[in-house]
C-alpha cells in the first residue's frame, strides 16, 4: 500500500511513437526504483518493451539509468523516457 504520487510522464521520438502519445499523468509509488517505474510504464504501454535496453529516464530533467536506485517522486514531477539521442 505504498503512497501514490501523480507524475507527468513525457515520451519522445521512438518512445512517443510506440506509446502513441507524448505525455500523460500517471499514478506511481512515491518510492520506487527506476527499474520498477519502467515496468509500471511498460504495463500501461506494452509496445515500449522493445526499447527497454535502449532508454534512460530523465527525472526532474536529470538523467537516471533504469537500475535499482530509489527514486523519491513528488507530485507533478516530470519523468521523461529518453531513447538514444541524435542532436547536432
Amino acid at each position, binding site marked *: 500500500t505504498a503512497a501514490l504520487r501523480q507524475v507527468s510522464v*513525457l515520451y*519522445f*521520438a*521512438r518512445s512517443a511513437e510506440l506509446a502513441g502519445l507524448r505525455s500523460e499523468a500517471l499514478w506511481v509509488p512515491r518510492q520506487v526504483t527506476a527499474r520498477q517505474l519502467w515496468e509500471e510504464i511498460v504495463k500501461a504501454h506494452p509496445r515500449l518493451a522493445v526499447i527497454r*535496453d*535502449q*532508454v*534512460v529516464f*530523465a527525472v526532474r*530533467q536529470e*538523467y537516471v*539509468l533504469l537500475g535499482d536506485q530509489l527514486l523519491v517522486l513528488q507530485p507533478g514531477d516530470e519523468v*521523461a523516457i*529518453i*531513447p*538514444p*539521442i*541524435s*542532436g*547536432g
Partner: protein
Amino acid sequence: MGESEEVPKDFIKLKSEKLSVDEVSELVISPYCGAVSLFIGTTRNNFEGKKVIHLEYEAYTSMAESEIKKICRDVRQKWPSVKHIAVHHRLGVVPITEASVIIAVSSPHRAESLEAVMYCINTLKASVPIWKKEIYEDEYSWKENKECFWANSEK
C-alpha cells in the same frame, strides 16, 4: 579597459526557423576577442546509399536548454578566457544542406575558441536530449549518435 568590462554571455536557442551563421557569429563577436570559432552541422543527402529527403528534429526543450547551459559552464571552467558562447539548434523539418546546429565561441586567442567549439559539439551529441529522424524516399529512421552511451551497442 579590462576584459571584465564585457560580461561573458551564453546565447542558447532552439527554434523551428532557418538558422543564420551571420546572426550566431555576431552574437559572440567581442572587441576584447581576436578569435571566433564556429561549427555548423548540415543535412547530408545520403546515408549508406539511401537518398535522404530531409531531417526532422524534436527536443525535450527545457531539458535540452539546461543541458546546453551545463556545457557552457563546463567550457568556462576548462577555458576561462572564453568570452561568449552561442548554441542555436533547429527543430522540425530541416531540408538538405541547411544547418541543424550552429555553435560559436569567442576568445581573445584562437586555441581556446577552437577547442571549446569542438568540446561543445562533442558534448552536445552525447548529452542533449534532441532526436533526429532521417526521412528517406519510402521509409524513415530514428538516428542514434555514436556519442550516446545508452544507444544500442550494435550500432
